[in-house]
């Protein structure tokens, strides 16, 4: 599932976003898992929004398929959830993917930290805010707050990863927690 998140983040980067906000909620009381990605990219027209879940629709010129959102939507549908997309042609898109937390076919979260680290590393011009409402605690990390003037890219990435992994684990994050099948095979 963390790979679907990476795919959504790439969409934001591709839309020219400068600020991306990711919210991950594990809500045991309501049996809900929700991932929301909001960005300030170029947005989509309503005609485009209607087609993004079609695997044969892409905004890219040189390929014939666009599988990012359709695959995320399929994973959500398999686990009793759905995808909602709100976008404005003048800018800004919000994609929310929900799953039933306890659904046997719900994929495990996987390494969300690896996803966010690789995204932040590959997009040094994008500021990311990450919020996690875990089983134990709430955790928030803002790249603007930990970036310091004149520090190298690698030093920043290392610092980001350390804070992220620390925060996730104290909020009760478990990458392998997922549906029955995945729990048994340990695949993520």
């Amino acid at each position, binding site marked *: 599932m963390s790979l679907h998140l990476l795919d959504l983040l790439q969409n934001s980067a591709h839309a020219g976003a400068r600020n991306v906000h990711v919210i991950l909620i594990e809500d045991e009381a309501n049996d809900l898992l929700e991932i929301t990605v909001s960005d300030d990219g170029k947005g989509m027209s309503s005609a485009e929004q209607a087609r993004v879940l079609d695997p044969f629709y892409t905004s890219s010129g*040189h*390929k014939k398929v666009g599988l990012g959102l359709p695959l995320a939507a399929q994973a959500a549908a398999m686990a009793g959830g759905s995808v909602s997309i709100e976008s404005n042609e003048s800018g800004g898109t919000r994609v929310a993917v929900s799953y039933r937390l306890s659904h046997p076919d719900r994929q495990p979260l996987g390494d969300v930290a690896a996803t966010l680290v690789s995204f932040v590393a*590959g997009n040094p011009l994008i500021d990311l805010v990450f919020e996690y409402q875990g089983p134990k605690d709430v955790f928030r990390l803002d790249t603007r707050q930990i970036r310091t003037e004149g520090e190298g890219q690698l030093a920043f990435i290392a610092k980001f990863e350390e804070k992220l992994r620390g925060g996730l684990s104290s909020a009760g994050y478990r990458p392998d927690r997922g549906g029955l099948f995945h729990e048994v095979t340990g695949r993520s």
Partner: protein
Amino acid sequence: MKSLEDLERLKEETLQDIRLRTSSGSPRIVIGMGTCGIAAGARETMLAIIDELKVRRKFDVTITETGCIGLCAKEPIVEVHMPGQPKVLYGNVDPSRGRQIVVSHIVNHKPIDQWIINVEDNS
């Protein structure tokens, strides 16, 4: 109408963007992070490359990413731009190959021929 601060910020961002794209003095690594790249394991490759750069203390290398370039069967694809050299495209770069590319190509300036899928000379 945008405020003066907005414009000032926009200018700074754009300048930063240009610096990033034209920083020809230092090596640059570009990793394919489209849906196909992600599915093929580009995330792990990128983390391995970052880690190896840290181990080798190559702090001057810039890492960026790109989308699908239409060669999905060869993903994860990694581009290496060394200053003054043609752009080299490596295919099927798993984390272990990623580490070896850092050591051989970036640190020791020896491209690994058998994994190269294209060399693009823009000069």
